[in-house]
């Protein structure tokens, strides 16, 4: 289990996070929701090692983890898919999946080994791309998002963080990506999903954690929660 414990972070006059805690279990999709500026991205950045907290921190299986930079986070099995996809459009799917982690033999790229495991990975996630050797520029938005998410799995992580993965997608492609998120759960990964879209959140998550003005403002089991109660927690209306 990966947890954020009592995390606080201040940017100048803005208290972005105040004593925020969050538990992430294997095989569970947790949705992190909240209004603009609630502190969602800041919390994710702390977990992913992009910014350091003023106090509090991350524990892994109960042990305090030292996460000083994104590389540390990756090594500890925390993988993040950022909102802007960070794919190289001129490279093909295989090259993008293994970017920066190329499999090599005598410093030569192992094209066949990488393509084989890329295919296996995409098949296991049921991502359908007709020819994975074409530049990513030629894929649809949903396919690209799927590649970005598949890429997060290359290092065999235990937690995958997704920042607004469906924000730019149409109905059908959103459904594709939500399916993919369910498959991450089936693989036993912990998934942290940031989304403004409550329909998506209700469709895939097991638990909803609400942030409001940098504080924990409620936690629901998705199956039990009503749309109204979640909205009330987000807006701070008396529930």
């Amino acid at each position: 289990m990966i947890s954020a414990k009592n995390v606080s972070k201040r940017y100048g006059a803005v208290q972005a996070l105040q004593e925020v805690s969050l538990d992430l279990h294997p095989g569970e999709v947790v949705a992190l929701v909240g209004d603009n500026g609630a502190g969602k991205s800041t919390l994710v950045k702390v977990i992913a090692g992009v910014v350091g907290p003023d106090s509090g921190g991350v524990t892994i299986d109960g042990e305090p983890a030292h996460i000083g930079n994104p590389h540390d986070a990756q090594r500890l099995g925390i993988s993040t898919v950022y909102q802007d996809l960070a794919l190289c459009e001129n490279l093909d799917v295989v090259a993008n999946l293994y970017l920066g982690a190329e499999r090599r033999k005598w410093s030569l790229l192992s094209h066949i080994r990488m393509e084989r495991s890329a295919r296996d990975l995409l098949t296991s996630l049921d991502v359908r791309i007709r020819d994975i050797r074409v530049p990513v520029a030629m894929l649809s938005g949903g396919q690209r998002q799927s590649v970005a998410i598949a890429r997060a799995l290359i290092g065999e992580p235990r937690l995958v963080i997704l920042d607004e993965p469906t924000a730019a997608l149409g109905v059908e492609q959103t459904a594709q990506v939500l399916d993919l998120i369910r498959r991450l759960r089936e693989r036993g990964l912990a998934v942290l999903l940031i989304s403004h879209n409550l329909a998506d959140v209700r469709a895939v998550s097991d638990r909803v954690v609400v942030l409001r003005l940098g504080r924990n403002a409620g936690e629901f089991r998705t199956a039990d929660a009503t749309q109204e109660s979640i909205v009330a927690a987000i807006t701070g209306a008396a529930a």
Partner: protein
Amino acid sequence: MNAATVTRKPYTPKEAVERLRHGDLGAWPVVGALVAIAVVFGSLNEHFLSPENLTNLALQMAATGTISLGIIMVLLLGEIDLSAGSVSGLCAVVMAILSVRQGWNPILAIVVALAAGALVGLLHGIMFTKLRMPSFVVTLAGLIGWQGLLLYLLGEGGIVNLPFDGFVAKLSDTWLPAWLAWTIVALLVLTSGGSSLVNRRLRLAAELPVPPAWWAAVKIGALTAVLAGAVLVMSADRGVPLLLVIFGTLVVAFDLVLRHTAFGRWMYAVGGNVEAARRAGISVTRIRVLAFVLSSTLAAFGGILSASRLSAVNQGSGGSDILLMAIAAAVIGGTSLFGGRGRTYAALLGILVIQSITNGMFLLSVDSSVRYMVTAAVLALAVAIDSLARRGSTT
């Protein structure tokens, strides 16, 4: 796994159009241009397609082509190197002064000149990455500054003649005997055929799709035809020039490095999306510095080849239109100015186009004013194709 998934299907016309729209034109525009050039000049002047002239053409290509190969290294990152011409002249002068005036061993002089080129590139790379100056400005300063240093080093005399029978001059006056040329062709065909066969076997064993067998056969056949044709033509004259072999080796070697090493992959990644490369843990700074080092070192080598052909260096070395020819060749050959797209063969194909236009117009005694305008038109066309392709790939 059934046969349908194992054989990668040829593209349907619709998909082919889609690929074209995304700028995946490959080498076809250039090949078309070369055929057009051969037809036009060949019909205007019976000497243009003669073995003697084509052999001259091969000899003329090597120096500027090598500089162009260096330019491709920075173009792949979406940067530019305007100093390549000056650096080529400067390093040729360094080589000439060391070997002639100082009496050094010519090979040692060449090595030192190449190291000087690498140092210049390192300086450019550091100014670009650490001082965050635009590459355009860094290398524009280099264009003027290294030209200045060249003039300073040449001093009063202004010219250094290389002995005609010396090692350097001999480089461009060495011709492969027919048996050697044919052996090289056979080796190239066998290696590329063999490696594609092995690759096919391995892919099938890994249950990965392979292109149809006839397609691989066509490719090998085309390679054989082109190489054999070239050797046949040049053997009818003086033979295959060593300079062409050197240039060709560089093109092939750099292509292999770019496609089969992590360094090459990272070059394309940085050119495609710097932010993505950085997040993937690639040291963007190191790649950028290396690209500038490669560019200047190859420019230095091109300068030495050029000095070899002239058997001299002078105040005009690396000057006039060499830089623009080299950049134009890279772009005409299909390297994108926007980074991330292109192969080293662009240097070979592009310089072939430019040099044959130059050569053809020279044969027709067309004034150089017209030659400049025609070259400019070809360059503009190539850049237009590149820009349209980029628009296609971002929408």
